[in-house]
């Protein structure tokens, strides 16, 4: 890693450090119930991170990112049931999801489908999963030993210590694994966007034609970042079904697909920590609202989305960064003016 890259990654490392501190301190400070809830929120934030990468940095508006999340969760669950342990299941989940994403991505990017139409296709994919899996209730629907369970879903075997299926992890330990996974993914993505690969992806987002005219095969770059994003979403899926204990086809529905997009809009496209923070914030908001009828989730989420699109289109993090840098520039100008005035005296 070059010096300039380390410099650019300084905020990433700072946030990662904060994350580590939080990870170590939280179980002693917070109740177990909160810790379990947090695990779910962490899983969701990994999903947000994956979309922040492919949309915020890569410019690929994937409406169905949640499909990779859910697919990862299902593949993990089914594999873990069949293997009798979690270790290989996690790997299989990531690989299968990434493979699926690369097939879908090849179809889309090498077919030069883009923008809205890409959004439709990815939305359709998650809806297909939703339709398909919901109707697999009967005993004849199973893969190996694992029943697919239809709209009731499947219970997920908890993660166990590597290759030791008897010693599965307790909720507090699952929390550690989840936080560690989030931090690792976050640092990885933070590194990735500063590599040549990452910067070319950003360039493609800015102007596809110009990137092509410079000699870059944009289809390959888009496919690459899309596949990596899916893999990260799959990691989130594995964490999710451990946090919740089971996975149901509802994960693939329109609401969750929308929610994923909302996290990135609210948090801010072009940042990583923004969408992660937005996920936690909105998770807290929707939990606090509970199932109440008047100020229900839909209402509040709808208002938030509209307000952000109209008034804060860049999202929270970039707006804050914008203010901070504007104030910094102002004070720098003031200092320069003062120096000039003193110089002429």
């Amino acid at each position, binding site marked *: 890693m070059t010096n300039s890259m380390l410099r650019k990654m300084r905020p990433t490392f700072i946030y990662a450090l904060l994350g580590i501190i939080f990870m170590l301190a939280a179980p002693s400070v917070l109740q177990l119930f909160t810790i379990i809830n947090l695990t779910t929120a962490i899983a969701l934030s990994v999903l947000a991170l994956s979309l922040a990468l492919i949309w915020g940095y890569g410019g690929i508006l994937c409406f169905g990112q949640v499909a990779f999340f859910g697919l990862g969760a299902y593949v993990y669950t089914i594999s873990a049931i069949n293997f009798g342990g979690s270790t290989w299941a996690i790997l299989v989940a990531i690989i299968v999801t990434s493979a699926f994403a690369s097939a879908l991505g090849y179809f889309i990017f090498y077919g030069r489908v883009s923008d809205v139409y890409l959004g439709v296709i990815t939305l359709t994919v998650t809806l297909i999963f939703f339709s398909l899996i919901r109707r697999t209730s009967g005993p004849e629907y199973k893969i190996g030993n694992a029943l697919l369970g239809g709209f009731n879903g499947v219970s997920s075997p908890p993660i166990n210590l590597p290759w030791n299926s008897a010693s599965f992890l307790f909720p507090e330990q699952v929390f550690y694994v989840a936080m560690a996974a989030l931090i690792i993914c976050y640092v990885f993505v933070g590194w990735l966007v500063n590599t040549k690969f990452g910067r070319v992806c950003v360039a493609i987002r800015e102007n596809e034609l110009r990137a092509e*005219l410079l000699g870059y095969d944009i289809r390959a770059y888009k496919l690459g970042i899309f596949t990596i994003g899916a893999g990260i979403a799959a990691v989130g899926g594995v964490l999710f079904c451990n946090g919740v204990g089971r996975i149901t086809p509802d994960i693939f529905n329109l609401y969750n697909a929308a929610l994923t997009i909302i996290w990135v809009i609210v948090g801010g496209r072009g940042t990583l920590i923004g969408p992660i923070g937005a996920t936690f914030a909105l998770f807290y908001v929707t939990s606090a609202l509970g199932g109440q009828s008047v100020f229900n989730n839909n209402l509040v989420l709808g208002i938030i989305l509209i307000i952000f699109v109209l008034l804060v289109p860049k999202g929270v993090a970039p707006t804050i960064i914008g203010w901070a840098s504007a104030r910094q520039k102002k004070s720098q100008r003031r200092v320069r003016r003062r120096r000039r005035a003193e110089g002429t005296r």
Partner: protein
Amino acid sequence: MKRKRGDVVVETRELCMHFGGVRAVEQVDFTLYDRELRCLIGPNGAGKSTFFKCLTGQLVPTSGEVLIRGHEMTGAEPFEIASLGVGIKTQVPNVFDGLTAEENIWLSARRWHGEARARALTAETIDRLDLGDIRRTLVGRLAHGQRQWVELGMVVAAEPWLVLLDEPAAGMTHEETYRTAQLIEEINKTSALIVVEHDMQFIRMISRQVTLFNEGGILMEDTMDAISADERAREVYLGHRS
């Protein structure tokens, strides 16, 4: 000046580009030699920009062939053509607005070199094109002429052996136009160039051989002086005086 008749680097054979009933480019045979500088001129709708886009891969020709250094590149993707070592500047500046001038040029250099050389080459290019003041500015914030220069910087940083420029002097001030002409002369020392242009003064500054397009075909190919004196050429321009 005696032109060296070296290898043929760009050739089109019976190139046609039709849009429905419109024959934008019709049966064009074109040849460009190594390190030659050719200007393409002609009235609006003559087909020069369409022809240009057939060379860059932005359009897939209806029929005919495009050969670059002997390789058949008809209908190839733009990135394939660029990957041959061809630098391209489009009519409307195509730059990365959300990135700084430095990053724009770096992306070009980095395509061909590793980290260290790319950074060095970027710095060199910025100095050469005198972009030092705006290196950290977001390109979207620059004036039109500056954006054109950033784009030229991107082209130059790739060290191409063939450069295709579509209206490089468009919207530029007198001084910028002069500097662009100088830059093109410099590039011509190592690379072949095809320049599509409207600005007659600019063409006079740089041209040797000029190809005059009209109604989808090549009307004549000669020096600017010869063309200016020609009756047919005058007629074609109808009111365009140099």
